[in-house]
Every structure is written in C-alpha cells, then in structure tokens.
C-alpha cells in the first residue's frame, strides 16, 4: 500500500499567487481552517512579475471614470464573449479590493493631493491603473503575504499537487508531494480552490515563470471539470528579443503608457496605419495628439500604441514578416525620444520605469533612456481556463472553485492590461468567500485509497525507467512540445498546422508514458518536470481543440483561414471536458443573454 500522510482543512487552496492568497485571507476571515499549497516558496509566484498596475475605476486621476466605463472597456477588449456577470462584478468591486490592500500596508504611487495615482494602459479609456513604479505585482504579493501570515492559514511551501480526489462527483481533496523529501500527502478538504495561474510554459517564448504549466486547469480537467475558451491565449506585444537567452522576458505596457512609441525598421510608427474600426473614434490620428494623451490631456485621444494587446502583437508580426523588422526580428520600442518633449527625461524614465531600466542595462547592455529597445510578442496569459459560475467561482464539479488566471470568463477573447491583478483580487476574494460558505455546509468525505494508490503508482513509474537506464528525458519532451506549440499554434493560426500540432501532441503523449527520472525523490527537478509535462500536454491539446473549433478570428485568436469575426461564434463559448474514456469532448455553449441595463451601458459607451 502506498505511503502517505493525511492533512485536513476546511478549505484547501492550491496556489499562492495573488488569487490564492486573497482567497486564503477571505476564507480564514470567515472562520475556515485554511491550507495553502504552494509550488514555490511564498511570495515567488508569477504575480510577482506583474509590472504595470492594477485596474480599478477609482477615478482619482480622471473623475469621469466609473465602473460602467471599466465594464464597457473590458467587454470591448474581450470582443463580447466575456462572462458579462464577471465583467460587471469585477468593475464594481475592484476599487474596494485595491483600497483594502492599502489598509493592509500596500504603498502605491500618489497623486499630488495624496491619493492613489493611476496610469494609462491599453484599452482603458481613462487612467485607471494603480501602480508602484513598474513593480506593482511585487507590492501586491508581498502585501498579501505579510497580511496572510498572521491569519489562521497553514502554508505548505514547495508542495506540488498531483491529482484531485473525488467522492462521487464532488471534489474532496488532493494528493500532493513535498519536494524536499519527495514524500506524499493527502489533503482532505470540504472545499478546494484552484489558483494556479496560467500555462505560458507550453510555449518556447514566454514571459511566464517556471511555475506556469497549467497545473490547476489540467488537474480540474482530469477530474472531469469543464474548461472554457482555451483557444484564447494572449501574446503580449512587447517581450525582449535580444539576446536570445532573455527572449520573452516582459517589457511592461507601462513604457507605452508613459509615452513610449513603436517604430518599425524604417523608423515609421506603423500602428497609425491600421486602427481597428471598433477603436477608431477613441484613437489619436496624429502623433502630437497621442503624446498629449499620455501627458494627461483629457481632450486628447490615446495613441495607437495603446490599442489592445492582440492587435498590437499582430501588427508587430506583420511588420517583421514583411521585412520591416529590427535587426533581431522584432520592432523598436522607444521611450528615450521623450527627451525632445520634457526636461529631465532620463530621470523621469528611471523613476517611472526603474525595473525596465535595470533589466535592459543588466541583461542587454542597453540604456533605455538613450536608445530604443527591440521587442516582439511573447506568450503571456490565458484568457480561457476552468469554466466557473460568475458569482461563486465554483466549477462544474461541486466543491471545486477556481480563481484568477486559471479561471475562464472575465477577459473573453482578450485581456486588457491591468485587469489581471484586479481579477485575482476580486475573484480570489469571491472564491475564498464561497468556498468557506460551501465548507460550512459540507463535511469531510472519505478519500479513495485506490485512487490515491493509482496516482502514486503513475508518478513513480519514471523512476523504474531511470533505474534501468531506459526511457526518455522529460526535459526533451517538454522542449519539443514548446517548439511545436510556438510554431504551429502561435499568434497566427491555420487549420492544417493545428491539426498537425494535435497529431504531434498525440505522439508526445505516447512518448511521455515512457519518461525516465534519474536519482532519488529528494528535490528532484527531473521528476517535477515529468509531472509538468503531463499537465502541459493536456493543456496544449485543449488549446488546439478550442482553436480548431473556433472558425473565426476574434481577440487573441487569429486564423488566416478565417480572418474575420463570425456571427455564429460571437454568441458562443467553446466548452471542453474529458469524457469517461479520457478523450476530450467539445461543445459550443451559447452565451447567456445580457440584462438590458448592461446592454445599455455598452451601447452608451460605443
């Protein structure tokens, strides 16, 4: 029989980024005993890398802003396939969630009259992002962490969850292992919250950290939960492209918010050449007006550099493919030029964008106050994920909740910058609240010994290969998958390439049944990679299946074989789940009719 220890909590939270920590604080405040399982050390989760800010209609900088405008911006950015209920709750509750962080010690940049300062960002009509220079994510995660450690929360650092445990259809716990010694633990819980973030590591070029292997979504999927809109993967327009070893590292949109401009290899601001009709009225038609907007002129419209990420990324790809790129296959992002406009520009850049300044100086020998940066698209964010109820964040399985990037709905086909940090606060809080409520009415359920034993047997199998010197390196399978997804299911998609990718994934799946892990179970990176690969393969297949089915171009999902939006797909989400036989089943789920008052807001803001 398999060896493991058992730990019991009312609410088990998987993931210790912003959503997980906010959920934990909420559930603990409501009296639940809370356990937080964290794949890394506390405070290292991918939230820490968020740069530009957290979107909330505080109206501190422009008092024309309010939740209605934020709601309309989010829906427009998501091309109207968002879960409108989530977009409504998000816009209404984000300001309170941000102010609450200040009460817990966060120190945001200030307006001249001492309130929280807000900056411009792509797709947001007014300056809306509360920020701390360009390290907002660090400020948020540290604030939540330092608050949470004084609450009734147990932290399990460097634990990895391998599978969810069920009693009938209800999720009643999870099996995990502790990295330091390689020991197994069963967590029994009345409610389980997934807060595991995204899956950028399915691609070769990504801004995402080591952790982002889609674990929670894959765990939910394997347990039979429904996924939604997996085809919507955001490629951030500005990642570093040079030198190769840093390719993909994020360059914050804040650079453009502060007046940075994009130029092609010929020196042209190419974004002026292609402004989508949905944004024509809100976008400057000359460089001077765009500059005035970034400097707070309320009568000016925003420069095209601040159009939504999907559009800017595609325009960059076009420039590069048509031979107008920069020397290393990107385009130029120039903030140094603002010295023509303002005195003390160098100091201003270093104050507003300190970590960008450091990052380029240390990693690329480039001084951004003097020279333009070279940038190109990088895999950044998953709009899709676990399908949840908008109010409670509960998945299609009772007792299983999801919040933050691993949950689908809020962002539709494309996320606006800054809406991710607000997402994890608003829905982290909600998931914590509803999980605690669910736990109050539920009891701990027995865990299936045979399911635990089978899971343990599966994850230990690669050691047998290692001992016998046969099988495949998990690193190799992972690298091949990343190359393939990058090439075949990237920014520009077409059916036959994605079908090839699906075929390739099947072959890699076969090979992944024969992985090899060397050494023992103590802090074994190869073993962990073998588990990551399993999740990444599930996620990659889900992305492909959603992307093949959505025969149109919308938001981040762009297909050359269907370059236009379609009426049919405007009204549906793609919903995937694994059937009894383990094969994916896909259906097109009609989006629920929006209430008249929300429709009216969208009409008014057009």
């Amino acid at each position, binding site marked *: 029989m398999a060896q493991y220890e058992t730990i019991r909590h009312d609410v088990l939270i998987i993931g210790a980024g912003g959503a997980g920590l906010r959920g934990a604080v909420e559930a603990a405040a409501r009296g639940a005993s809370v356990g937080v399982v964290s794949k*890394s*050390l506390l*405070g*290292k*989760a*991918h939230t*820490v*890398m968020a740069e530009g800010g957290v979107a909330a209609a505080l109206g501190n900088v422009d008092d024309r802003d309010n939740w209605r405008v934020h709601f309309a911006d989010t829906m427009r950015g998501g091309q109207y396939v968002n879960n409108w209920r989530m977009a409504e709750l998000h816009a209404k509750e984000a300001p309170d969630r941000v*102010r609450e962080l*200040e*009460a817990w*010690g966060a*120190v*945001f*940049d*200030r307006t001249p*009259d*001492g*309130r929280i300062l807000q900056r411009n960002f792509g797709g947001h009509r007014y300056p809306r992002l509360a920020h*701390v220079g360009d*390290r907002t*994510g*660090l400020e948020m995660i*540290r604030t939540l962490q*330092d*608050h949470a*450690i*004084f609450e009734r929360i147990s*932290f399990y*650092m460097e634990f990895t969850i391998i599978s969810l445990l069920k009693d009938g259809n209800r999720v009643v716990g999870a099996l995990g292992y502790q990295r330091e010694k390689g020991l197994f633990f069963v967590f029994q819980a009345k409610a389980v919250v997934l807060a595991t973030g995204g899956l950028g590591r399915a691609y070769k070029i990504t801004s995402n*950290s*080591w*952790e982002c292997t889609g674990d929670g979504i894959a765990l939910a999927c394997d347990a039979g939960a429904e996924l939604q809109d997996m085809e919507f993967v955001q490629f951030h327009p500005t990642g570093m492209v040079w*030198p*190769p*070893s*840093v390719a993909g*590292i*994020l360059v914050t949109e804040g650079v453009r918010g502060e007046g940075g401009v994009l130029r092609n290899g010929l020196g042209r601001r190419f974004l002026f050449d292609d402004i989508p009709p949905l944004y024509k009225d809100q976008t400057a038609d000359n460089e001077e007006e765009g500059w005035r907007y970034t400097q707070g002129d309320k009568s000016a419209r925003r420069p095209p550099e601040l159009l939504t990420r999907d559009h800017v990324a595609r325009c960059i790809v076009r420039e590069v493919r048509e031979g107008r790129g920069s020397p290393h296959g990107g385009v130029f992002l120039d903030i140094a030029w603002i010295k023509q406009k303002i005195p003390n520009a160098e100091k201003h850049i270093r104050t507003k964008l300190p*970590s960008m300044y*450091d*990052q380029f100086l*240390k*990693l*690329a020998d480039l001084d951004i106050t003097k020279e333009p940066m070279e940038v190109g698209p990088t895999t950044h964010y998953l709009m899709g994920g676990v399908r949840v109820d908008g109010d409670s964040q509960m998945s299609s399985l009772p007792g299983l909740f999801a919040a933050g990037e691993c949950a689908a709905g809020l962002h539709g086909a494309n996320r606006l910058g800054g809406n991710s940090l607000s997402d994890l606060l608003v829905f982290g809080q909600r998931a914590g609240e509803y999980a605690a409520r669910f736990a109050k009415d539920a009891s701990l359920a027995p865990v299936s010994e045979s399911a635990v034993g089978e899971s343990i047997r599966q994850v230990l199998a690669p050691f047998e290969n290692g001992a016998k010197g046969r099988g495949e*390196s*998990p*690193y190799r399978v992972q*690298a091949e998958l990343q190359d393939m997804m990058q090439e075949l299911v990237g920014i520009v998609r077409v059916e036959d390439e994605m079908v090839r990718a699906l075929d390739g994934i099947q072959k890699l799946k076969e090979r992944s049944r024969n992985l090899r*892990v*060397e*050494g*023992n179970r*103590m*802090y*074994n*990176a*190869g*073993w962990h*990679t073998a588990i990551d690969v399993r999740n990444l393969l599930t996620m990659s297949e889900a992305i492909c299946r959603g992307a093949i089915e959505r025969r149109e171009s919308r938001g981040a999902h762009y297909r050359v074989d269907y370059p236009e939006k379609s009426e049919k797909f405007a009204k549906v989400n793609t919903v995937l789940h694994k059937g009894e036989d383990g094969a994916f089943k896909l259906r097109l789920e009609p989006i629920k009719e929006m209430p008249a008052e929300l429709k009216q807001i969208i009409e008014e803001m057009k």
Partner: protein
Amino acid sequence: MTATTATFSIWRGDRQGGKLVEYQTEIAEGMVVLDAVRRIQADQANDLAVRWNCKAGKCGSCAAEINGKPRLMCMTRLSDVPTNRPILVEPMRTFPLIRDLVTDVSWNFEKKRTVRKFTPRKPDAPDGTWRMAQIDVDRVQEFRKCIECFLCQNVCHVLRDHQLFDEYIGPRLLTHSAALEMHPLDSDHRLSDLRFTQGIGYCNITKCCTKVCPEEIKITDNAIIPLKERLVDRYFDPVAWLFGAGR
C-alpha cells in the same frame, strides 16, 4: 554570435555530504549563469536541484554563490565572469542545505512572524481612505523593492559566522521592520522588539548586506542606521551618555 564551451563546477550533494562536479556546456552571447545551469540540468544532470522562478531578477529564488560571491544566478551574465577557468556555483552557505544548490530558507519566513504586523492609523477621509505624499512613500518604497532573495542574510556575519539565528533577525527583517516603522500610516511600535528580542545591536554596520543586494537597497544606511538612531533617542539619554552613566 559565437558558441564556445565553458566549464561549470557545481556543488552536488545533500546534508550527508557532497562534492563539486564539473560540467562542460556550450555558452552563447547574453547568457546568464542560470541559463547554463538549466542547460546542464536538461542535458547532463536531470536531477540537479536548483530553485528558480522568473529568470528576470524579480522573484529572488535563485540566490547562490558564484565564484564565491553571493548573487542571483539569473542576473549574473557569463560575460561578467571569467570563462577560461571553471565557474564555481555553490549554494548559499548560511542556510541548511537541502540538496545541490537548494537551501532551507524557511527560517526567514518563520522569523518574519515575530515582526509586528502593519497597523494603520484611522482613515483620513470619510470614505475610509488615506492621504500620503509621494515624498513620504518614496522612503518606504525603497525597502519594499526587496525581493526576499535572502542574500543579505547569507552574507551577514552575525548569521553566517556566529549562527545567532535565535537572537537576531538579520538585515532582511531589519529592512522589513524599517519599512513598517517608516510607513506613513503605521501606528504600531517595534523598537522594543528590535532591541530586546530581535538583536539589532548585533549589527555593527559592516555593510556587507548592502553590497550584495540585487535591488540596490541601501540596507545599512537607510534602514538599519535610522532604526538604531531611533533606538538611541528612545532608550539612551544623550546627556547621561556624555557623563558615562548610560553604560
């Protein structure tokens, strides 16, 4: 871009013992130490234990000692270390070893709970919000840049050489205390703890912590010394000191 080969001498082992093992790998323009270590892990040593997350200097996970110098592996470029002889990569020495390059830093997390939490004054405005001037938040924002890599704890001789883990909280947590004490909204007091249970007196301002901080926080000058000054103001009457009565 020219590919050349470099040798890395990496510490392998656990609490029972270990040794330096040499690996050769290809290096290319722009690479950092972490890139090379990961390449070695993928190609030659699948079970090599190394902690990393963001690879962009933002999370502070990959602290190690490179050629004897405490640094982040992700921010140490190979162009900045000599590659004509083996590059030495070892775990932080101050903390108990788990395996290879990974150490047990949990003491830092436990100790943080001994620093009294942020306690704001009553809100300034009827809507429950506060007002703060940018100039006042600038000071604490410097401390809040900390990415908790614990390199400062690793080099502090009070911890590294004297192992006073029970009596002293170290530069990281002194900086954390300073961020709270100087927070414009905070209303709690931490000086008594700093003096009597957290051992601020052990710091004799050698500034080793400041030198290794990847965030370039002036730990000693801006965090620790001002705290020490506040302590002196509070506990030691300067006139009495002048006459030798304070001792």
